[in-house]
């Protein structure tokens, strides 16, 4: 059974790139534009969330906190997208319960490697 990944990013191009890469690798992909949208779409089989941290309405940190407090999805692996210049946000993300992170910019190999690490 193919696994379902939710990509949460306000940047359409990043979402598109992630979706394109993951679909090519055999994953199902759900796209969400921010944290609120992501929580709304969080139902059924979702195996992983890849989220940006800086987003309007609800940022990635808040999204991770919500997921960790969720009765069904509390163990859901969450990968955050960070940039090197924001180690503090990486720390905040980890404190909120992020499973791992990908440093932007990343390429498709790195993305798939991280997915493999977290999803098996």
């Amino acid at each position, binding site marked *: 059974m193919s696994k379902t990944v939710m990509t949460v990013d*306000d*940047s*359409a*191009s*990043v979402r*598109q*790139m992630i979706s*394109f890469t993951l679909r090519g690798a055999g994953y199902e992909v759900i796209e969400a534009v921010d944290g609120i949208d992501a929580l709304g779409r969080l139902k059924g089989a979702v195996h992983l969330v890849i989220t*940006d941290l*800086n*987003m*309007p309405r609800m940022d990635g940190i808040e999204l991770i906190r919500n997921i*960790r407090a969720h009765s069904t999805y*509390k*163990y*859901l*692996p*969450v990968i955050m*997208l960070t*940039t*090197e*210049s*924001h180690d503090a946000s990486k720390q905040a993300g*980890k404190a909120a*319960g*992020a*499973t*791992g*992170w*990908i*440093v*932007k*910019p*990343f*390429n498709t*190999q*790195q993305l798939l*490697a*991280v997915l*493999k*690490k*977290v*999803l*098996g």
Partner: protein
Amino acid sequence: MNDRHREAYREEAAELLVELEVALLELERQPEDTELVGRVFRALHTIKGSGAMFGFDAIVNFTHHLETVFDGVRQGRIAVTPALTGVTLEARDHIQTLVGSPLAGGGVTESGARILDRLRTITSSVPCADSQPNEGVCEPAVTSEASSYRIRFDPAPDILLNGSNPILLLSELGGLGDLSLMAHVDRIPQLEKIDLEKCYLHWDAVLTTAAGGNAIRDVFIFVEDQASIVIEPAGAASAVQPPRIGELMVARGDVSPDRLEAALLEKQHLERQRHGKHEAAATLRVPAAKLDNLVNIVGELVTVQARLSAFALGCGDPEAASIAEEVERLSELLRENTMSIRMLPIGETFGRLRRLVRDLSSDLGKPAELVTEGNDTELDKTVIEQLSDPLVHLIRNAVDHGLESPQRRLELGKPATGKIRLSASHEGAFVLVRVADDGAGLNRQAIRARAVERGLITAGTALTDQEIDGLILAPGFSTADQVTEISGRGVGMDVVKGGIDALRGSLTVNSRPGAGAEFTLKIPLTLAIIDGLLVEAGGERFVVPLSNVSECIELLHGPQSGAGRQSLVTVRGDLVPYIALRERFSLAGDRPPIEQVIIADTRDGKFGLAVDHVIGGHHTVVKKLGNLYRQIEEVSGATILGDGGIALILDVDKLVAGAVRNS
């Protein structure tokens, strides 16, 4: 990255630039609005972040500085001034230009540099350009040589709570190379105390990989903060000394059991690695004397180990008992291994006999060929050496007496060339060596007549064919009508039998008149150390070779009768004669009311040996008794026991034969 994505980025960047412009203009009017600062920052952040993914390096390098400035603004380090918003708007326009222009190098253009200079003077906090690290998470640092690493992965109990799965990490580790893994379960609490959301396990692993230490570190990169991860080169000085000493250290509390297990795991792993590497070096020639020496030392070790076991059992200390058990296991392994080193294929001896057959057939004018089977059957070196003489004898007999003359063979419709078949095969702890010829078989009438003549039997004795055939093995029997140069000097089979007896083997003959005779030698695999049954009678201990023992029974007896003579005991309906060891060796004291009787398989059939009690199995290191005691038939040697005492090893066949003669 294909153009489709780049086009999507350009469109998105255009939107973001509009958003950036709107936010900047509003910010100019309301410099204190942090929400607006956030919008500016996010726009810059996304432009940079996404740009990096689609190869817009010029945009990334330029926007990076703007983003840094606005991060400072967000954190309150840099104040929003009209000058700042002004420059930023200019910078925004510059980005727009960059987005519109075709993909080029990553350098900051001249106009871009001017904008950045002004930005720097305004904020005086913009770091130098080109600080754009590009660190990937999973870039493998490949080194050419595979090396081994000792890895301890000790996750915090709440590691599961952030969606991490330690199993996946471990399997990822396994993907890097050859992994030996050990999970420590000692922290798992009792069932009612288990919190299902917690991870109670920690792991030790030894990994041999060419990927290098960084790749291993990358495996755990997401859980570094939630686990203690130790990665060290393995094979160098280990944190703890492996096996036996380690156990003592555990007992003393110097080292925790799981550390020790980890060290053992590493050792095994590295041994396996080394093993794999050196598989090419197949054999090694060693002087036989060194091997003999080794066997002697192993013999001593087995003796000392028996002492240790006896002592550990006696002192009742469970710790000592478990060490003794380990030592016993290891010395057993050592014994088996050493014995297997001494094992040689019998084929070499067979090869020498081929020459013998050739010489014999030309001397006697009887064409004969030797066919060998089971050349790779292995036997103890000393057994093979001692087997040589009996085999030579048997083959001489076969060619000389067994095979008919070529004329006779042709008359009988057999091929003129006789066939001697020499074969070896395993049967339990024994090796069967068969010498068969396709000659006339034994002449039973001649044997019988000869036996009567020699006084071995009386003329009227009723004997089965088998028994008649067996007569040729009796001392002083020779059937050859004429004594030839080659064999038949009246010592013949007797000598063969003696040689086989010395090997604690047995010799049987099977003859089919007209079709040939087959002699079967049943030889124990080894002589140096035998499995025996340790028994006690009258305060003395004896070893009965286990190869002789078929069963032990208990004997309740009433008033004693016929001291020194054999009595009968019923074993599942069969009457089996037995003698009491105590009486046979004139040991002081009375036989106990309940005796153990060892039922032994002997050449004279089943025979019982009554002893006071059976102590148990014993790995017996056989020591010779010395020349002084050579004439004592009933005892084949002695062994040193665990407590330093000595037990005589009984030659059951001779003991029983003596008893049968006496009765």
